[in-house]
Structures are given as C-alpha cells and as structure tokens.
C-alpha cells in the first residue's frame, strides 16, 4: 500500500480513484464502519454503498469545522464571530454521513478539518488512530462543566474534547392513557398493559436488537458492559456480557417479551410515530423525540426510566457531544483557540441548544434551560443518573452481538444460553 501524502488539491483525484476501486471490486460498501448502534440522533440505517464513498472536501478557509447537519447551522454565527475577532475566514462544513469515519480518513491523509464535532464515544477510535489531541483545560474552566459531561470527554485520564451537551434516554408517558407516574418498571408494565393501548411500551429493538435502548433495563437487572476502575474509567479486560447480571437481564427481557411488552416489530423507524399516534402507552427515547411528540399534540409527561422493583436503578447510557481539535489540521493554533475560547462561551452553548434542545454540558446554561423547560430538566436528571457510554474502541465488538442477543431472546431463544454464547462471541472478537 503506497502511503499517500496527499496535498489537499489532489483530494478529488484520489477520491475518484478510491471510488473506482470500490466499484471495481466486489467490496460493495467502502466507507462503512461507523460504530453500530452508537446513539447519535436517531440511529440510522446503513447508507447505500457509493454514498459513503463521497467524502467531503476540505473547504478553503483559515479555519475549517466539520459538523453534522443539525449542528452546522447553529455554529455558523459562532464561527463567523470568531472569524471577525481574529480577522480570519471560518468555514463550517456539513458532513451528514459517517462523520467520524470521514474525519479519521481525511485527517490521516492530511486534508481533514481543523475542528470536528461529535459524540464522545468516538474518542477511543479517534485516539487509536491518532486523530485528536488532548486539551489542557485548566481547573477553573473544568468547573464550568457538569461532572458527567467531563467524565465523558475524559479518556485515559486526558480531556480530549470540549463538551457542550449531554443526551440520554427517558420515559415518555401518554397521560391520556396512563395518568399516574410509575414508580418502578413493574408499574410501567402493569399500567401499560392495563391502559388498553395497542402497545404497552415502545422500546425500539427491531430484528437486529438495540443494545443502546435496552441499557436501562439491562443495568437495572444487574448487567454491565465493561467493569470500571475506582476513578470510573472503563476496563476493556472486564467484560460483563455473559456474567450473571446479564443473564438475569436477559431473563427479564424474555419475560417482558412473553407479556407482549417488548417486540421486535417496534423499530427505530416506527417507535416514535406509534407513540405520537397514541398507539403506545409509554415510549423510551431521547431528546430527539421531543420535537415530534410536541408537534403531534399527544399529551405526555417525561420522567427518568425507573428500575425494576427491588432491583438496581435503571441507568441508561449518557452520551456527550463535544468539540475536538484535529491532530493534523492545518491551523491547529486557531483550532485550539476556537475550541477553548469561542466554543466554551455560554452564548455558543445557547445557540447550540436553540438548534437542538439537549441539556447543556455547562452548569450555568443548564440551570437556565432547566428552569425554562421541564423536559430538559428531566433529561438532565436522567443523564446525571446514567452511566457514561464507554468510549473504548472495543465497544464496536459489543453493540451488534448484544443487540442480536436481545432480538433472539425476544423472539423466544433461551435467555441464559443466548447471553452466555454472546459473551463468548464478544470475548473472542476482543482478542
């Protein structure tokens, strides 16, 4: 493999060659490979082949920021202001497909952006590819951010990103169907079944399963994915899939499936719409569902997902959205200043919240938001009580098998055996 020390202007040529390579070969999906089931906004399906091969081209500006479509628009003003203050041009580019993969690839080739915005669980993979640099965030500046947000962007003891929002799952309840807030998950099941709704609960699984959305129930039943050190860092060597807690969780899942509470027919495509049509008593989803639920006029109330009676609390995954400095950006000095100074302002946090309401990572802004919007307060509470999504690259080996195990159990497979086999499969691929 001839290494490619590419100059940016040759990017087009290289890309067309790469595309040709993809088409010429039987390897149909070239770009591929974003962490499956990673939370993001709405878990999307695999893009059609070819689409992913069309990587973005670095814009011609003094500072280039890559973000997905939702945040790019919100950043425009922040970026322009930073540009005026420093007398430079700033370009915010939208990369709507496979942002992480595109960023890592472009950065390796030397024609990537200076700053990238994305979920904190990318950090593990970006670090192993040498794509991001740690930030020296002084104590005083750290104190501005919530603990869970800082924990998310800290990897192997270093802060790699500047956090701006957290996201997690919570429980939406149709108050027409279920007036009372449930105290335990057993109440959710009982009231859901008694409500007369077509579906007691919309918790998306699909035929592939969905480990992210199952996580509250998994942790409540005593399951864990990776063990943690005293300081809360995940240990890749201590795998919890296949351990006794995970088997209890799988048995709970089987039980719920028999009661008709969990179904593989409820997928990422239909779970929110079933709830907004009044066909689900409860919905387990994240802040990305709020807009649809509000628009539909469904009367709803929001609360953290409760745990099973007499068991551990339900801890969904908490994800953190953050700004990163690219290791091989052309303008690292501007990039660091942008992330540490311009992005870390309350105004920036507010603008990003306007574009997509998720609890801010900045204490001061979060207090304002929680006071103004009770939903945000609930999501913030759920996020603080959640478990930080592991940023380990090893997670790529967990999402898919674990999800499939859930789907198999819901479809009637033996819980204990399925979870044990899945543990072995995951362990084997971690070797």
């Amino acid at each position, binding site marked *: 493999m001839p290494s490619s020390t590419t100059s940016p202007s040759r990017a087009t040529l290289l890309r067309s060659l790469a595309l040709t390579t993809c088409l010429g070969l*039987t390897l149909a999906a070239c770009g591929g490979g974003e962490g499956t089931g990673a939370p993001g906004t709405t878990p999307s399906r695999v893009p059609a*082949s070819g689409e992913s091969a069309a990587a973005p081209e670095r814009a011609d500006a003094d500072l280039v920021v890559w973000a997905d479509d939702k945040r790019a628009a919100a950043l425009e003003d922040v970026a322009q202001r930073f540009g005026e203050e420093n007398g430079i041009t700033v370009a915010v580019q939208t990369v709507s497909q496979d942002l992480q993969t595109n960023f890592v690839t472009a950065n390796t080739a030397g024609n990537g952006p200076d700053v990238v915005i994305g979920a904190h669980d990318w950090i593990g993979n970006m670090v192993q590819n040498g794509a991001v640099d740690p930030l020296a965030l002084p104590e005083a500046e750290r104190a501005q951010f919530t603990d869970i947000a800082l924990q998310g962007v800290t990897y192997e003891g270093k802060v790699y990103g500047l956090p701006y929002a957290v996201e997690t799952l919570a429980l939406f309840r149709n108050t027409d169907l279920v007036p009372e807030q449930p105290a335990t998950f057993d109440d959710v099941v009982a009231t859901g079944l008694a409500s007369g709704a077509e579906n007691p609960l919309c918790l998306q699984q699909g035929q592939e399963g969905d480990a992210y959305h199952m996580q509250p129930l998994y942790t409540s039943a005593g399951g864990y994915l990776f063990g943690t050190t005293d300081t809360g860092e995940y240990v890749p060597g201590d795998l919890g899939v296949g351990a006794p807690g995970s088997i209890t969780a799988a048995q709970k899942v089987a039980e719920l499936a028999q009661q008709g509470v969990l179904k593989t027919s409820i997928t990422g495509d239909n779970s929110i719409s079933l709830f907004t049509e009044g066909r689900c008593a409860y919905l387990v989803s994240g802040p990305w569902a709020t807009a649809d639920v509000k628009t539909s006029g469904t009367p709803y109330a929001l609360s953290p997902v409760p745990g099973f009676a007499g068991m551990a609390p339900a801890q969904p995954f908490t994800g953190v959205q953050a700004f990163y400095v690219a290791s091989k950006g052309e303008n690292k*000095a501007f990039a660091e200043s942008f992330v540490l100074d311009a992005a870390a302002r309350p105004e920036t946090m507010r603008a990003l919240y306007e574009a997509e309401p998720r609890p801010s990572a900045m204490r001061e802004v979060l207090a304002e938001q929680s006071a103004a919007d009770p939903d945000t307060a609930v999501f913030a509470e759920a996020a603080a009580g959640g478990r930080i999504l592991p940023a380990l690259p090893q997670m790529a080996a967990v999402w898919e098998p674990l999800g499939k195990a859930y789907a198999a159990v819901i479809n009637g497979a033996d819980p204990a055996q399925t979870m044990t086999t899945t543990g072995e499969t995951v362990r084997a691929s971690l070797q």
Partner: protein
Amino acid sequence: MTSTPTRPPAAVPASPSPAAPRRGADAGRRSVTASAALLRVLLLGTLAAVTVWLAPALVARESWVGLTALVVGAVSLVAVYSTSRFVPAKYLLPGTLFLLALVVYPIVSTLQLSFTNFGDGKRGTKEEAISSIVGSSVEQLPDSPTYALTVATRGSVTEGPFSFFLVDTRTGEVSVGDADGVQEVEAGEVTVTDGRVSAADGWTLLTPRQVNDAGAAVQELTLPTEDGAIRAQGVARAFEGRTVLRHDEATDTIVNTRTGERFGIGVVGDSEFFVGPDGRPAFSQSWLQGVGLSNYERIVTDDTVSGAFLRVFAWTLAFAVLAVGLSFAVGLALAVVLDDRRIRGQRLYRSLLLLPYAIPSVIALLVWSNFYNRDFGLINELLGLRLDWLGDPWLAKAAVLLTSVWMGFPYMFVVCTGALQSIPGELREAAVMDGARAWTAFRRIVLPLLLVAVTPLLIASFAFNFNNFNAIELLTEGGPFPPDSPSAGSTDILISYTYRLAFGGSGAQFGFAAAVSALLFLVTAVLAAVQFRATRSLEDVN
C-alpha cells in the same frame, strides 16, 4: 498511489484509415479528413494538457509509478492517434487503457492492501503513532497557572526565533521566555492591555494569524521550567505541562519518565504494538505494516469466519439463481401475454409494469422492509396474517426473494418484450402449420431463440444479485440471526456477511476486507467463466 488518469479520446470517428494516407484523392474526402484532423488535434491537445496538469502533482507526491503510467499512457495515445501506422491499436488501445485503469489497477491495489494490516488504529506510519502516543501524554501540572500568551520575535514573523510574553491569568505577573527559560518582566517594560501584553520595545508582536501561520515553530516551542515546560495552546493561551512519555530511539522503546517503565515493541495478533510487561498493547496506537498472508490465514482458520462460510455461500448461490430465475419467469410470462395484439390497452399495461423499475431501489427496499413488519406491516395487515416475516429464517428468505423478484421482473419484462418482437412471426406460424400446439411452438421455437438474446443479460443479472449488498442490507440486514451466531444471519449473502466481519467487529479492518474481496473476486470470476462456457452451447441454435 499509481494513478493512471489517462483520458483517451473517447472516439476518433471518421478516420477512414485505408484512405487517409492517400492525400488529395478528391475534394470531398479531403474535407472529411480535415475535420477529422481538427478533432484529433483537439482531443490530443486536451490529453497533453491533462498530462501536463497532472504530472507536477504526481512528482510532488513522489508517485513515480503513477507518473510512469501517466506518461506511458499519454505517449502511447499520441503515438497511436497522431500517425496512421497502428491501425488495429486505434481500436484496442482505449479499451485496454480503461481495462488497466478500472479493472486491473483496483485488483492489484486490493491485493496489495490484503497483505497489510490497514485498519482502525493501524492507518499511519510508525512515526505518527509514536508522536501521537508521546503527544497524548502531555499533562497539565496540577495547580499550575494558565497564561495569556503573546508571541513575539526579534527576527522574522514567519521564521522566528520566537519568544512568549506570558501574563499569569491569576496574579497578572508578566514574564517572557524562550527555549532557554523564563524570566520575569519588570512592570513598565511592556504595555499590558486587557490582561495581555500589547506592546514591547524592540519586539515585534505577532497577530493571531501570524501565530497560526508560524505553525509548528510556535506549537512545538517549549519553555523549560522547574517541573515541566510552558507551551502554547491556541493563539492566545499557554499552560505549564509535562510530557510523561518519551521515545527512546536507541532501544526503540517508549519510556515513562515518571515511573521509569519501558514499553518495547511486541507483536499482538499480526501487528506490532508498544507492549507492556504482560505482552498486551500498552497503547492502542499501532501503525500500517505488511503482514504477509495472515489475513488469508484468518479466513481459513478463524472459526467465526470459516464456520458459517459454506452455509452462507449456498444461500448466496440459491438467492442469485432464484432471484434471476423467478424474475425472468415472471417477466417472460408477462411479456408473452402482453405480446398478443388482441389485448386492449397494451401500452398502458406495459407502462404500469415498468413502475417498480422507476422507483429508486434504496427507497423501494426500505419501504418493503417496513411492509414485512409483523405487527405494523402492510402485508400482514392486508392479509390478516401474523407472520413474522423478518423473524423466521425461511420467511425472511422468502421475503428477500419476493422483493428481489418485484424489483427485477420489469427489467426482464422489457428485455423479453424486445426479444420477442425481434423473432419473426412466420417461424411460429410455420410451426403451427406443421401441427405444433401453441405451447410446443413456444417451447421449441420461440424460447430457444429468445434465450440466445437474453442469456448474457441473465448472466449479468446473476453476477449482480450474487453481490447484491443493498437488497440484503436494507431489507433484513442479514437477519434473523440464530442466537448462537451473531455474525452470520439467515439471509446473509457473502458480501453482506464479509462486510460485517470486516467492519462490524472491531472497527474497520481494510486489510482483512481486501483479502476477503480478493477471494470473492476469485469466486465470481470462476462462476462467470463457467457460465460463459455454458452459454456457448446456445450458439448451436444459430
């Protein structure tokens, strides 16, 4: 990369080669030759321009193979088309060049890639991995101040040497330093505005843009202090930090300067890492290495890869054969029925039948995948069934085939309609006159003639379905998966199965994926060869 961006003149028409050398034969012929010559000059000129445009870039990247390919391609094109000596080459050369650029080159580079460990964590050079490991180990000293930074120079703003004016953000104390150390600055020597040095006698202060443009010269400047070093972060801040790790070139080990631990190179899996005493990688960063046949070995020896291979291969064949066979049968039946002139609204029917062909396949597949939903899908709701289409292994296979037939039959219908119309009606009439029934006439006369025309298309269709990644990935994602095998689903075909192996498990593994692609290419090539051999027997019909 060995790029061959040759753009051969797509067509050099009107070059009546035998007559061309005999100039001045007659006026009419000369005018044709003149316009042909003009076109030729234009196309060859474009070619030369493209060559000249690309060459410096290739030289800059030291891509000598690419440069050679470019020059050889360009020279051979010019030689062939500017003279009239190589007439057969005029027809063969463009095709050959495209073959080299679009088929041979990708195969060769895939093969090259399959002998490496290229993938996540193994993308760059060893130097890049080391600099990432060492760079990530810089930690800010606890309770150390942060500084408002002004970069200054007594020399050039681009070359340096650079010094840092620092204002302690907590105490407001001003200091100045360079690679030799840091000294305090007396009040009055410099002007401080808004907590930042804004003027200093004898110094040129850099603007933010100049700091940025100076790049590594500023970014890598460290001002030694008692416990560590002060370094810049961004254009306007500095902090005191310490690099915990360093690379010892003599022994090629990473040394932890605080604990004295040393991490030497060790092989984990098929790649080298810096490893700890337990032999496990101490850092996740590795680098691009040649690994010989290890990717191929893995395909054969890894149980999760080879275990399900035969099952998946069998379904791949069955899927490709059935998808083509069934959609051909449906398409042919409809074509024959609608070929009858007595049918009213023939055109309308034909247009309606083409509709599935007009819907983009990605959208159609996603919509179909929702149709199959057990509780909310259109199919079960219309038919009042409770079939778990995508949850049962056999129903899922049926669902995949049904959708493939729906998407494939319009093409077969168009092809068969065209082929049927080209078969002379007299042949059938003659058969009927001789006493053959309609079915016999169709089977003995029409079908064989039809097959001569459509068999190559059937083979192409087969090859397409053999690798029809979208049909599987967008409909079932390979599922349903048996509880004991999360890597090979009931509807997985080879390409979706290997895609999951290469990109699902532990991030992207391009080297391994390339090895699998190479094998898939081999399988497809053998199948294609067998099919083409088989089609020769059809030529007897003529």
